[in-house]
């Protein structure tokens, strides 16, 4: 670990001398609350850049990573992005985790015409000309998981629990509307938000259990983020809530998060992602092996890592096709790029800057891994959800319409720059 950082620091030093190299910016927090999740992604990027260089680099040049630390501080993200684009002159940036940080970086990236690959599942309602979203849009994670609840588990009453920030808010807004469209009355949807790092869960868990009083099957959809999950699952276990009575499907709990938890009491609860480490394909086995041999046998892989894996390889292909790292040329070459998923099947970059991805639902096992119980074919990512009236009329098509927010009713481009 220490060697790795040292090596990357040395690479940075080398980079400033040889100007001809292709520079790849890595914008992930290495300190602060998000460091736990984001450091892994920085290591993933360094691993893939190393692999690419071993294959002979790109366009005959060497790839050089430029790693900066925005320290989980949202304003600092914008500052560091500007630094990457103006001081270091990077050709592409891979980075961000929280939606807040992405919204903070957006104006800078759009102003300076940078290129950002964003690897995390997010709330949608956005399509920037300068961002490629390699994580899931709501229709690739939240909606299929809700369908699974409705159709497979017969859930009739929903508890939407989330941490109070933009991703859960927007996701739950979409889900509420979706459930109402599916005939679930508003009184059967219980919504609750808690602050980051919330620890006093007893009353909320009791409230959720009490929802069962009218004889309907209750299911929890959790967008609880980070540390707060520890207390939540502990209280759930203490209240004796089994996954067969009240299932919990989480959108922000993956292999990495579970490694900090004792999962024996959580067996059977669910998570929805586009990738699980337990997927059985040759490409995945290879990826896991490379990761473990680099980082240590106890390390796990997760969904955002796969997103970076696909994003990076697509970018490499696009640069090769374009014959240049120029942002506009690479962007044009990105559309229609395909690359095999680690879970089987092929991801394709759509003109709305989203990927086609399979949706996987996994049950938590005692060893902290997920047992994949459902896998769909690839679903195309939808930037603007079809389930909110104001977004229904919007489409994003940067290839044909050159617009990320095109109103199909008035046939006009609402705006070129993003909302932030």
């Amino acid at each position: 670990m220490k060697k790795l950082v040292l090596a990357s620091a040395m690479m940075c030093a080398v980079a400033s001398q040889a100007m001809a190299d292709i520079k790849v910016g890595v914008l992930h927090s290495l300190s602060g609350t998000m460091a736990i999740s984001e450091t892994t992604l920085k290591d993933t990027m360094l691993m893939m850049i190393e692999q690419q260089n071993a294959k002979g680099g790109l366009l005959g040049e060497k790839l050089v990573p430029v790693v900066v630390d925005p320290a989980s501080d949202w304003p600092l993200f914008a500052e560091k992005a500007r630094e990457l684009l103006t001081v270091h002159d990077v050709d592409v940036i891979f980075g961000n985790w929280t939606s807040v940080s992405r919204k903070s970086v957006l104006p800078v990236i759009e102003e300076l015409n940078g290129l950002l690959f964003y690897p995390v599942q997010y709330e949608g309602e956005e399509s920037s000309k300068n961002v490629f979203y390699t994580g899931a849009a709501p229709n690739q994670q939240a909606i299929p998981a809700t369908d699974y609840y409705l159709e497979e588990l017969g859930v009739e009453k929903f508890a939407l629990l989330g941490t109070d920030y933009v991703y859960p808010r927007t996701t739950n807004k979409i889900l509420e509307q979706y459930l109402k469209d599916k005939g679930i009355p508003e009184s059967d949807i219980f919504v609750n938000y808690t602050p980051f790092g919330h620890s006093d869960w007893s009353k909320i868990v009791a409230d959720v259990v009490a929802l069962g009083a009218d004889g309907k099957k209750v299911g929890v959809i959790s967008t609880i983020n980070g540390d707060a999950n520890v207390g939540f699952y502990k209280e759930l276990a203490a209240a004796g809530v089994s996954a067969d009575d009240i299932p919990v499907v989480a959108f922000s709990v993956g292999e990495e998060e579970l490694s900090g938890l004792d999962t024996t009491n959580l067996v059977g609860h669910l998570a929805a992602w586009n990738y699980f480490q337990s997927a059985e394909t040759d490409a995945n086995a290879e990826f896991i092996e490379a990761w473990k041999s680099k980082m240590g046998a106890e390390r796990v892989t997760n969904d955002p890592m796969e997103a970076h894996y696909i994003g990076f390889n697509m970018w490499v292909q696009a640069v090769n096709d374009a014959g240049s790292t120029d942002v506009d040329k690479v962007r044009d070459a990105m559309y229609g790029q395909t690359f095999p998923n680690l879970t089987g099947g092929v991801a394709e970059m759509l003109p709305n800057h989203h990927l086609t991805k399979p949706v996987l639902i996994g049950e938590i096992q005692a060893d902290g891994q997920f047992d994949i119980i459902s896998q769909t074919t690839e679903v195309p990512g939808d930037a603007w959800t079809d389930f909110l009236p104001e977004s229904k009329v919007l489409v994003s098509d940067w290839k044909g319409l050159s617009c990320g927010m095109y109103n199909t009713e008035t046939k006009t481009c609402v705006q070129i720059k993003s909302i932030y």
Partner: protein
Amino acid sequence: MENTILIKHLLKHPSVMIFLGLLAGFTLLVVGLAEGAGIGLISTSFVKTLGKTLCLCMIAIAMDLVWGFCGILSLGHFAFFALGGYIIGMWLMFARTKLIVLEAAQNAVLPMTQSEVSQAVGTQIFGVVGGAEIPAIWTFADNFWIQIAFVVLVPGLLALIFGWLAFRARVNGVYLSILTQAMTLALALYLFQNDSGLRGNNGLSGLQNIPGFDAVSQADISIWFFIASAGALALIYVLAYGLISSKMGNIIRGIRDNEARVRFLGYNVESYKLFIFVLTAIIAAVAGALYYPQAGIINPAELAPIASIYLAVWVAIGGRGRLYGAVIGAAFVSLLSSYFTGGQAPDIPLGFGTLRWTEWWLVLLGLSFVGVTLYAPKGIGGLIDHLTRKRGV
């Protein structure tokens, strides 16, 4: 006429002249070297960092006035700073979004009605946090001048109410510190809620884009804000200096050194304290209103209690009871912090391992702070005093 008196007055105080001269020189230097106006040696992002640092110096002066001169250790002044930022941010966001909405509607067959415009603006601003309605506190967000007035009025009023309650009940010393900390925590928690109408945890973003100045590059805008911050700092420095060298300044210092004695002399201690508390709250709010358009985003984490404690740390390291001490402390520590935590500082290989600044900087900062409190209670300012006195200036 008045100007000449002021200048004469200032000439009597060489330290103010030195400060203003240094600040002017620094401003000219940065502008000359910057990307936007000069030869491009200083990047836009660094100009922004310097501009923000100047704003931090302003709030440090406020902190020095209230703590170093009046003896009230407020651990809540960042609340006012952030409030100023939020209020100006509301205008920035609303006005810019409205321009976008109107531009998009230009080609529509029917012109939009007033309610349709505000509905569209609401969807744009609050759509990302799951809402669409424009909350009541945004009523005047469209009007620049009213929002500017609010930058002064709202934090001032909050400080007035809080200070009146606290000083009237003779809450002082450590209790007051804890109470001010509770105030900023309450405000932060309130703003963290989505229902606060200020987009909860997400905060306000895109503040670096000034409505109506889309065509102007950020390189230029950063220079404007840098100059504005330098001007505001100069103004506030002179104002603060005028205050502390007046008779009132003596009374305030008296309150710091022995509150009871000043009260027995017949002064209304509470009014003086309240005045300083409100005045510094307003200075903090103005500093915040200049800071956040340069930062580009504001969210409730900015007013977590720890930010205000850091403020006290800056002032203490710089040297309490000296205005330039506060400025030096804020500039020195905040720039050093961003240098070391930014990962640019080279790691130092030790025999047994590597000292990584990103990991150990906070530890060193914390411990050096203990050292300053224990062994150099006058801070860097004290050191400067020591040196200048030696030379007999």
